[in-house]
């Protein structure tokens, strides 16, 4: 992250949830509809407070469940409004049909999903499984590393979702229980700067919207060729989103003085021989361990994914090409595959990586800490792979029992 000394904000010590709520407030949405769920509840509490204080001039719909929340914001978005909602885990699953419909309708909804383990086993704990289980919904997925990035990404998400060339809903993800409740110093921008950043959208053509009495409907038709046309347009828009997000990141830096490098953030990658690929809050720990390993002479770097959908394959290939070994850290599972989801997807581009070897690490599931010791183990194992040693393909770092009986 590049930080510019020029002060255009005030620093507040707030949680990730508060950062998300403040970002939503700064974006001036017309409609907010949300239902509380651990670990997202604080966002809704804060927005309710802003609304009650008169700080937020929006329609706040306190719906009876997540399904209604997504349907409400989708409808409001189709009517031309700027909308916000937030959920987590079971809530995301309960609104799943509406999540798909929102993407299909190309409604530029911005929502926050505070990552938590997903139904299957009752788990009130952190993990990216809810994000992974929703990855093919047709939304753009962004992942934050810290509370500052939560705020920045929500603001950037509005520029991306509502851009006339994109018009795809955006979900901002961050690790529940870690970032949701962790208080950090956050540069909160001033309203006029946020207005300036978002004002670009007003210069664009107006998107199609529902008008009372108008003979125009959305989502009422789509068969055969029409379905193909819409799906192709959607896939094309997802591809365009990559370059658009890079551009938004640059414009954000010009106004707020912070840049993360766009689709991926590269940390000490230039001369690195081995690389860990990670996403979310684990990256802070990984950076700290990389600094220690560097002092010991190990040439290791981190590639942090900021965008997960669309999959930033070009940016990742560019950053990873020619590295000796790559360890992909997944905080979720890909049932039916041995390795983690991001590992499995990156594996599809293995032939374009110039001979880099790859291994998968599963860690951080259900609140197991990705400790510095764990990260050191991952780096050592990846170094062993680079040195040509025999290393197993998949390692469950916090669950050695997985390796005892031969492993995967």
């Amino acid at each position: 992250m590049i930080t510019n000394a020029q002060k255009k904000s005030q620093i507040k010590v707030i949680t990730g949830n508060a950062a998300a709520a403040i970002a939503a407030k700064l974006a001036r949405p017309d409609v907010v509809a949300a239902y509380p769920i651990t670990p997202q509840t604080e966002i809704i509490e804060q927005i309710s407070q802003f609304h009650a204080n008169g700080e937020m001039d929006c329609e706040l719909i306190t719906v009876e469940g997540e399904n209604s929340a997504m349907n409400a914001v989708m409808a409001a978005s189709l009517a031309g409004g700027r909308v916000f909602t937030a959920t987590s885990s079971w809530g995301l699953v309960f609104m799943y049909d509406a999540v798909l419909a929102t993407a299909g309708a190309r409604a530029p909804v911005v929502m926050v999903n505070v990552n938590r383990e997903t139904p299957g086993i009752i788990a009130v704990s952190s993990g990216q499984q809810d994000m992974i289980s929703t990855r093919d919904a047709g939304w753009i997925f962004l992942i934050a590393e810290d509370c500052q990035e939560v705020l920045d990404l929500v603001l950037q998400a509005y520029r991306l979702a509502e851009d006339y060339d994109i018009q795809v809903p955006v979900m901002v993800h961050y690790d529940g229980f870690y970032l949701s409740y962790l208080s950090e110093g956050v540069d909160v921008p001033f309203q006029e700067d946020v207005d300036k950043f978002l004002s670009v959208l007003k210069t664009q053509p107006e998107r199609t919207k529902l008008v009372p009495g108008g003979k125009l409907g959305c989502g009422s038709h789509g068969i055969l060729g029409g379905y193909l046309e819409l799906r192709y347009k959607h896939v094309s828009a997802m591809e365009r989103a990559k370059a658009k997000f890079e551009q938004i990141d640059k414009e954000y830096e010009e106004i707020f003085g912070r840049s993360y490098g766009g689709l991926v953030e590269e940390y000490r990658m230039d001369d690195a021989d081995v690389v860990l690929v990670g996403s979310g809050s684990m990256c802070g720990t990984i950076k700290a361990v990389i600094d220690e390993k560097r002092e010991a002479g190990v040439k290791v770097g981190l590639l942090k994914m900021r965008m997960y959908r669309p999959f930033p394959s070009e940016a990742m290939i560019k950053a990873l090409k020619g590295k000796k070994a790559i360890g992909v850290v997944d905080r979720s599972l890909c049932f039916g595959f041995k390795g983690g989801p991001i590992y499995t997807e990156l594996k599809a581009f293995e032939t374009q990586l110039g001979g880099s070897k790859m291994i998968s690490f599963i860690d951080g599931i259900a609140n197991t800490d990705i400790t510095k010791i764990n990260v050191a183990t991952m780096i050592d194992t990846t170094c062993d792979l680079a040195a040509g040693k025999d290393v197993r393909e998949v390692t469950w770092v916090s669950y050695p029992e997985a390796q005892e009986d031969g492993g995967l």
Partner: protein
Amino acid sequence: MSSNKYFKHEGPWSDANDPLMCSDTGDWRTKRPVVDKDKCIFCGFCAIYCPIQIMEMVEESHFSPDLDFCKGCGICAKECPKNAISMMPEGDFKK
């Protein structure tokens, strides 16, 4: 940019043509709502509850269904606080 053969818009927006806007969905109906003008207190419950929004105001005194579109679900009759709406078999009405 992809083609706009089926949809003129980026999203799945369809322009309804005029024949579609006046297609006679009312012929699905087996019972029709009949409003007793004397009992109607003009509360508007029937208009609010009507799932396809076909209850029309008549001279600000009572409501009357648009029979081109009314499917005869009977929700208006059920919700009317004055029992001013009764559902009558279509066979009773000669075309």
